[in-house]
């Protein structure tokens, strides 16, 4: 004989609603991170393996070919900040595509959460917060491995950690806002990856200064969160002379991508939640 299920006696619903209104975004972020637990092994292997492979291949391997200084520093010092930003930002872009669509369409976890004290806007914000924490860890692992390679000339290089995470969120927020509107199978993501994310990566000045490109192509870098993040990371890492935008300008660009993306996501998430049955 099973015990009776208590109902409405030990839970204060008024308090639950009040807490949901204030902290719903955090409750969602917590659950979102817990969902990642089954993939923890793969995530750690990637977070450690990526930096090692990149630093060996680009910093040491390609660096051996690039004998003269780039932007006044060794090639390893030049490329390392860019590698942190591009790796972390790629993870951020990935989170903004299939997983968002799946939350509405396949796993439907957003629909489950929307039936609780949480609102759709808080779900969008919770995704951002969960991803932000994950990207911070990924960037910190990269930075720590970079230490072993002697990739950071200045002590202020630890700034690459929050900068990398911010670049990732700057990709994520607008993509998430868009992904919430998609109702078919998501073939659009192939175009996004090949025609938007990929060029923004290639023109982010990761492997060579953007100024090496013909002037009429440089705008691709200017609109890329990866380029702005990379410039910021280089300022912190080896004190790059910040041309043509001041430090604050790069930071403002990333902040605008995140805030603007989230403002649109708040709407698209709410609208999609109404449509999904």
């Amino acid at each position, binding site marked *: 004989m099973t*015990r009776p299920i208590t*109902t409405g006696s030990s839970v204060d619903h008024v308090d639950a609603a009040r807490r949901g209104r204030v902290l719903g975004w955090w409750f969602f972020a917590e659950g979102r991170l817990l969902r990642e637990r089954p993939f923890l092994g793969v995530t750690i292997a990637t977070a450690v393996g990526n930096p090692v492979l990149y630093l060996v291949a680009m910093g040491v391997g390609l660096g051996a070919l690039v004998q003269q200084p780039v932007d006044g520093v060794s090639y390893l010092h030049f490329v390392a900040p860019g590698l942190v930003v591009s790796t972390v930002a790629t993870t951020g872009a990935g989170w903004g595509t299939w997983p968002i669509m799946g939350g509405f369409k396949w796993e*439907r976890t957003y629909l489950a959460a929307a*039936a609780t004290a949480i609102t759709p806007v808080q779900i969008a914000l919770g995704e951002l917060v969960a991803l932000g924490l994950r990207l911070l860890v990924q960037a910190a692992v990269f930075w720590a491995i970079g230490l072993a390679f002697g990739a950071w000339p200045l002590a202020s290089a630890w700034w690459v950690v929050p900068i990398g995470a911010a670049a990732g969120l700057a990709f994520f927020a607008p993509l998430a806002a868009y992904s919430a509107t998609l109702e078919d199978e998501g073939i659009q993501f192939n175009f996004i990856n090949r025609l938007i994310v990929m060029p923004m990566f290639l023109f982010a000045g990761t492997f060579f200064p953007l100024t090496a490109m013909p002037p009429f192509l440089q705008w691709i870098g200017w609109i890329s969160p990866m380029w702005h993040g990379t410039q910021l990371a280089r300022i912190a890492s080896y004190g790059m002379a910040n041309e043509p935008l001041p430090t604050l300008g790069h930071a403002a660009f990333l902040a605008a991508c995140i805030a603007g993306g989230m403002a649109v996501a708040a709407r698209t998430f709410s609208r999609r939640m109404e449509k999904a*049955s």
Partner: protein
Amino acid sequence: MPVIRAADLVKTYGDFDAVAGIAFEVEPGESFGLLGPNGAGKSTTMRMIGGTLLRTAGVLEVLGLDPETHGPEVRASLGVVPQQDNLDEELRARDNLIVYGRYFGLPLSYLKPKADELLEFAQLTEKANAKVSALSGGMKRRLTIARGLVNEPRVLLLDEPTTGLDPQARHILWDRLFRLKEQGVTLVVTTHFMDEAEQLCDRLIVMDHGAIVAEGSPQDLIRRYSSREVVELRFGSDRNAAVAGELRALVDRSEVLPDRVLLYADDGEALLETINRRGLNPLTSLVRRSSLEDVFLRLTGRSLVD
């Protein structure tokens, strides 16, 4: 005070009326049903109660609050079991309950013992650490119901709780829901199964094309809209219509369906005897009590399940 009150409730999509001005009240502790075929507007009504779908017009109060303006306050007191399971397939059964409970801001000190209690209730204790993707359809359904109870809701909304389950799984589920009912949980159930409505509901509304066509207890509706018994006869698909005329003279009400003829009478056995005496010789015959299916047929001229 009713826990749910709807008046002139309307939901339109373009020029399609999904819900066309319905009114009903649900009392505390009651088991209330919305019975109707697919597309009758049942799920739409449920989603408006939870405040995840905005209404086009009318009044809707849940626990005295408007779910549109007080979504979190209303949903904090609701348990929702959606038509389509949306369990987190990546998580284990027990973690599904805990993560969902965290969405209500409930502390882990409460959620851990609660999750075990609910797993026991759902007869899933052995599956506590199994991934959701490894559970059967019936188990997933019970886990979804357990999840809906994690915040100790005052009202449990169940949208088509047993659709897609085999008969045994349905009966296990009904047993669990019946226990909840006995414990005084207010249940709101949508279904297109008349046996489910009869088993679970104290009172129900019959919906068709977004409107309420009848309201009452199952017995009450049967008494009002049908006879005590029904004689079901099969003469073979080509003869059903041919003998229908002769049969119709014997009763006040009859229905000719593609595969059988239904005759409504207070004494089914006596009617069957008369039919046999006349030498009509049906291939098969069955005398049964009237059900909500007969009520629906009477009210709309159609079956619940097409």
